[in-house]
């Protein structure tokens, strides 16, 4: 309580700290076996600063913040906090010094209550009752409403993130690290978060902000440090840069622009879903309710929505991992397929790329050729009289490798040994090379570097141009805007009517993602705000 008043005081620490940075790393290095995750990184964080940390996946951002938060020990280099060299024994020491962190993959406990989750992030010096009271006060002060008694699994993704932020704020941190906080938020929720962050900055705190979204960084951040391949490549003022110039520094070259063929022709419906309802298969799953849409050849339909609103369940119902009682609910190429198995649906010309690459899209410990066989055998060519044609499976791997520029150490490695981007290129390539009539793909570029993402998006566009129907589920609105012809939104297991890509503004989609309906009034209001 008292600590809070100190930070809210109009003369915060920021005033006399013009001489030395709040946090500084000197030559910070982290080595895993023969892999350098961080190579001599120098970074300075000043009070009253929102500092962006940019870089592609695998550039070393997470490693750097884990070292600053005391989760891992650096192999070499120094961390200075308020001008003094420190060696952190663990996160609790970091927290007690005033370093807080909001994790990308929430560090929450589903079966515990909000208050219990917050208590676990504190050091337990106050009673549970006092802590709960303070929790309500902090959440009110910052406009982050929370009910302390609810269990986490009942909450939306936005609410879960609020818990993380409130938990961090309750320690009255001088320095707060946020790891991709907006990746799972609707645009409106992100705007609310930015208001909170601006306020924290005004209170004299420093923020290290990790994000992929360059427009967001330009809008919010005062300084940006860019990492590539474990090294720092630049520190700059993002407001003076363009999104393209920031992207160039991240990638170390130009990112190819994705081009759709103009005037794609749409043909007959190739995939139709009619009034599909499905009970959840798991304890915390989502019930699908009356989902209907139609997808023509040559068309890309995007499904937006915050994760966990039924996208996984819809994918399972389309792919045949879960069957419907009524065959007519899923129609592939004019044939009722709701009751058909995955293989039978593949034989009708459908192909599926699930969100999870390892364990769902591929068997991690099997070779690429074996993985090609696992989904490809329904289409024939790789199995003769029950015997595997090894040469044919290898040819499939080679074709996917060449067409989609899959980079790997040897000709036929285990799936798990590929990087995320390269494995995703292989999986998408494996399905596209079968010339599917219908492709259902979930989060095609999730956790994939910008170069590989461009290749994959281009491939999806090319496939549609060739006449296939493509269904893309994604949380990345920019991605959907780039490739989809129409966009629908999933919320609580229901699917909105698709909007054409032109009329689907971020505001409209954001409202739908938050569960509002598009009454004309509300749209006007959102546009005005």
């Amino acid at each position, binding site marked *: 309580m008292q600590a809070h008043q100190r930070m809210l005081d109009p003369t915060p620490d920021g005033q006399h700290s013009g001489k030395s940075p709040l946090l500084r790393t000197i030559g910070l290095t982290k080595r895993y076996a023969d892999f350098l995750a961080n190579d001599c990184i120098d970074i300075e964080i000043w009070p009253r600063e929102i500092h962006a940390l940019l870089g592609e996946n695998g550039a070393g951002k997470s490693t750097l913040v884990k070292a600053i938060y005391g*989760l891992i020990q650096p192999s070499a280099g120094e961390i200075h906090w308020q001008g003094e060299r420190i060696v952190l024994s663990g996160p609790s020491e970091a927290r007690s010094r005033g370093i807080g962190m909001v994790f990308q*993959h929430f*560090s929450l*406990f*589903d079966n515990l209550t909000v208050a*219990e989750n917050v208590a676990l992030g504190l050091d337990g010096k106050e009673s549970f009752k006092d802590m709960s009271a303070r929790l309500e006060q902090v959440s009110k002060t910052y406009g982050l409403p929370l009910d302390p008694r609810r269990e986490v699994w009942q909450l939306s993704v936005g609410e879960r993130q609020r818990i993380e932020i409130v938990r961090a704020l309750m320690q009255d941190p001088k320095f707060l690290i946020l790891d991709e906080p907006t990746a799972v938020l609707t645009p409106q929720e992100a705007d609310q978060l930015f208001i909170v962050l601006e306020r924290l900055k005004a209170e004299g705190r420093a923020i290290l902000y990790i994000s992929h979204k360059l427009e967001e960084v330009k809008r919010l951040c005062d300084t940006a440090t860019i990492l590539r391949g474990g090294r720092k490549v630049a520190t700059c003022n993002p407001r003076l840069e363009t999104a393209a110039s920031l992207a160039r520094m991240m990638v170390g070259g130009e990112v190819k622009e994705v081009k759709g063929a103009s005037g794609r022709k749409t043909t007959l419906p190739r995939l139709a879903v009619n009034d599909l309802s499905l009970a959840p298969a798991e304890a915390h799953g989502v019930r699908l309710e009356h989902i209907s849409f139609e997808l023509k050849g040559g068309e890309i339909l995007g499904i937006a929505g915050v994760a966990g609103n039924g996208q996984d369940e819809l994918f399972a119902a389309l792919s045949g991992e879960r069957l419907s009682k009524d065959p007519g609910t899923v129609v592939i190429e004019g044939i009722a397929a709701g009751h058909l198995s995955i293989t039978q649906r593949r034989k009708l010309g459908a192909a599926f790329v699930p969100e999870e690459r390892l364990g769902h899209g591929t068997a991690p410990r099997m070779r690429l050729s074996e993985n090609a066989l696992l989904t490809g055998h329904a289409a024939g060519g790789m199995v003769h009289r029950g015997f595997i044609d090894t040469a044919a499976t290898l040819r499939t791997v080679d074709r996917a490798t060449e067409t989609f520029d899959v980079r790997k150490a040897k000709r036929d490695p285990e799936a798990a040994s590929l990087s995320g981007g390269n494995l995703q290129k292989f999986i998408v390539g494996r399905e596209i090379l079968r010339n599917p009539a219908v492709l259902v793909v979930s989060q095609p570029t999730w956790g994939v570097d910008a170069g590989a993402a461009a290749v994959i998006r281009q491939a999806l566009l090319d496939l549609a141009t060739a006449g296939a129907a493509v269904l893309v589920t994604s949380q990345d609105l920019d991605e959907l805007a780039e490739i989809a012809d129409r966009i629908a939104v999933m919320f609580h297991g229901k699917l909105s009517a698709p909007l054409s890509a032109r009329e689907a503004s971020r505001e409209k989609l954001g409202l739908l993602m938050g569960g509002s309906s598009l009454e004309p009034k509300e749209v006007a209001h959102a546009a005005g705000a």
Partner: protein
Amino acid sequence: MELVEAIVLAVLAASTPLLIAATGELVVERSGVLNLGVEGMMIVGAACGFAGAWLTGSILIGALFGIVAGTLMSLVFALMALGLAVNQVATGLALTILGVGLSGLIGAGFVGERITPAVHLFIPVLTDIPLIGRVLFGEDGFVYVSITLIIAVWWFLYRTRAGLILRACGDNHVSAHALGYPVLRIRTFAVMFGGACAGLAGAYLPLAYTPFFIPGMTAGRGWIALALVVFSSWRPGRLVVGAYLFGAVTILQLHAQGWGVGIPSQFMSALPYLATVIVLVLLSRARTGGSTAPAALGTVFVPDR
């Protein structure tokens, strides 16, 4: 009347080892570890407990021997499953096989020996109250310990910060680690507690239930304790109900056989196990809302340093 009293006393005696062993395993599983070696830890506890009591003539020292033996066995499990991140199911099964062999070796010299079993509480007047006197105030010390233990575990899990941290490790070890909690150390302590309880439960058998040791005398009680934890959906209150229910079915079928009910004895002996299966099915069908099993149960955790 005397028959009812006798049956209740017998039920309590049959239920106590199940309750003690299951209490320990409940804590282990709440921390996210699945130790299937309860049977092995119990049987070694039984052999060592009897050896201790026979050598010193003290039931208390015998019980301590059982506790230490069970804890040592659980440390073998902790070393393998937590320290070396070996598959927990395989390690637990191996521990049971090891325990059965080891107890035969330790107990070989004691087969056929007898000891004076644990004394029962006697409080003048109170113990003499008809019907409930002996049930409430005339039990052996183990019964009172088992009830104290489960109440203490309930209080620990839901009323202390350490208990909250232990539950957090069982729900999501990655998060617990990210918040700076020593997941493996916490789990090691939980496993040791489970081992101590299993050892004590095993020692109860030759020290109080029957005053002698025979190889294999746990007769699957470790497995029943494991099933009870699932039965209780990892909640201490339901665990008590489950343990006594199971003990009751065990005793009732014995009496039913004595009364000459025209059902094959093999079927009657299988009744307690059948009851467990039926209750498990009913419970899983009735379950709604939040999941009950600790989400990280049985998964290997290797912290990233």
